[in-house]
C-alpha cells in the first residue's frame, strides 16, 4: 500500500460519521446510542459524529426488529449512504427480532435485507458496547476499502448474547 492509501485507511478509521435509523424500535436502543455521545461515554473522542443526512455518513446504525413498513426505507437509506460504508445493528431486535419473533408485522432480522457488519446485542446494549461496535465497524470499513478483506460479521458480546455470535443466536432461537 502506498502512503496515500495508508493515510486514507487511517483517516477512515479515525472519522466514522453515523446515520441513525429506527426500524420500529421501542426507543430503548435509540436512547443508548445518544447516551454513547453524551459526556460519560463521549464517542466524539473517536471522531464519531451523528450526521443529519445519510449522504454524509460512513456507518449506518439501525435499531429495531425491522417492521414490514420499514423494509423499503432501510433499503433506500442503505443505498443513499455513499461508499465505503458499514452497517451496525444495535440491540437484539435487528440481530434476532428478539421478543417479536414470529410476529406477522415483522420482517427481520436485519441481515435478510442488507449486509450487516457488526451486531451489538443487548436489550438495550450498554453505551460502551455501542462505542466498541462503532469502532469495530470503522476498522472493518477502512480495511474493506483498502482491499484487506476480513468481512465476516462481528459480534460485540453483551449480557444478552452469551453464545458469542448474534447470527448463531438467531439460528438457535429460530429452532426453539
Amino acid at each position, binding site marked *: 500500500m502506498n502512503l496515500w492509501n495508508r493515510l486514507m485507511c487511517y*483517516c477512515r478509521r479515525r472519522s466514522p460519521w453515523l446515520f441513525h435509523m429506527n426500524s420500529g424500535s421501542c426507543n430503548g436502543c435509540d436512547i443508548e446510542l445518544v447516551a454513547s455521545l453524551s459526556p460519560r461515554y463521549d464517542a466524539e473522542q473517536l*471522531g464519531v459524529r451523528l*450526521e443529519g443526512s445519510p449522504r454524509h455518513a460512513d456507518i449506518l446504525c439501525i435499531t429495531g426488529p425491522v417492521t414490514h413498513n420499514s423494509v423499503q426505507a432501510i433499503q433506500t437509506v442503505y443505498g443513499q449512504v455513499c461508499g465505503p460504508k458499514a452497517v451496525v445493528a444495535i440491540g437484539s431486535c435487528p440481530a434476532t427480532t428478539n421478543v417479536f419473533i414470529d410476529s406477522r408485522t415483522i420482517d427481520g432480522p436485519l441481515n435478510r435485507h442488507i449486509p450487516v457488519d457488526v451486531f451489538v446485542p443487548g436489550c438495550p446494549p450498554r453505551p460502551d458496547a455501542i462505542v466498541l461496535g462503532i469502532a469495530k465497524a470503522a476498522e472493518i470499513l477502512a480495511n474493506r476499502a483498502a482491499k484487506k478483506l476480513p468481512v465476516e460479521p462481528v459480534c460485540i458480546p453483551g449480557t444478552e448474547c452469551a453464545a458469542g455470535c448474534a447470527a448463531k443466536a438467531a439460528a438457535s432461537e429460530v429452532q426453539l
Partner: protein
Amino acid sequence: MNLTAALARLLIFPGLLFAVPAAWFFLWVERKAVALMQGRIGPPFMQPFYDFIKLLGKSTPPRSGVAGLLMKVWPLIAVSAAAGAVGLLPVLPSSGGFQGDLILLLALLELPSMCIIAAGFSSRSIFGEIGSAREAVLSVAYNVVFLLAIISIAASQHTFRLEALAQMPVSPVHWLGVLMRCLGVLAILVCLPAKLHINPFSLPNAEQEIYSGPMTEYAGPELAMWELSHGLEWVAATGLAATLVAPVVAILVAPHLIVWWLAALLFVALSFGVVLLLSVVAAATARLAIDTTVRFYWQCTLIFAVLAISSALFMRLRS
C-alpha cells in the same frame, strides 16, 4: 500590489498555505470548546484533517445534467472566494493592498453564503430548499447590521483601505474614534454567529431539524470542499474582526512597541480569542427560530449600528 506579491498573498501567507491549516485548527477549537463546555473530552487535535481526507476518499452519487454540474461547481466557488478573502487580510504591516480592498473582502465573504443558497436550490432536496430559504432570510437580516457597522468604521477614518483601517493614529489618540471602533466591532461580533451558521443562529444547517439543510444531498469530496470553505470563512471572518480590533488593543496596551512580528502575533491571538468567544456562545445557547432571529437583528442590534454610523457621520461633518 504587483502580480507576484498578490499571488504570494493568495497562495502562501495569509492565503491557502497558512489558511487551510488555520481553518482546520479553528474547526477543532470550535468542536473542542463545545465539548469542554459540555464536560466531554472532545475530538483529537487532528480530527478536522482526518474528516477532510476521509471525505476526499468517499464516492459521490451519480448526477447528470446542468444541476449536477452546478452542484459540483458551488463548493469550489465558495472555497476560492473564502481563500481570496483570507488573502486580502492585512496581517503583516505594509504588505500592500489597494484602495477599496475592504469592499472586495466583504463581497468575497458574502460569496460562500450565496453559493450555499444556490447549492440548496440546485440539489432539488426539500430540506435543501428550506435551508436555502432560511439562509437567504438570515443573510438579509444580519447583513444590514454588518454592513452598517463596517461602513461606520470606514467612514470615521475616511478610507476603504484595509491596511489604513488596521492602524489608528497613536499621537494624539482620538478617543471618540476608539469608542466608535469598539461599537462597530461589537456590532460585527454580534453578526458573526449568523455569518458562520453557529448557534444561536444555526438555522440554515439546523441539524436534526431539517437534516443538514443545503448540504443534505452533498457527499464525498464536494462535502469536503464545503467543510473547507466553512473553515476558511471562520479564518476570514474572525481575521476581519481581529484586524479591526487590533489597533484599539495596541493603543490601550503599548502604542510605541508595536513591531511587525508583534502585530502578526497580536492578530493571531485576537483571531483565536474571537473563535473561543464564538464557540463558547455557541455551546451556551440553543437555536433561535427564524422570526426571533430577524427580530433580534432588525430591532435590537440595529440600534448599535445606527448609533455607530450616525456618530461616524457626525465626526465626518465636524472634521
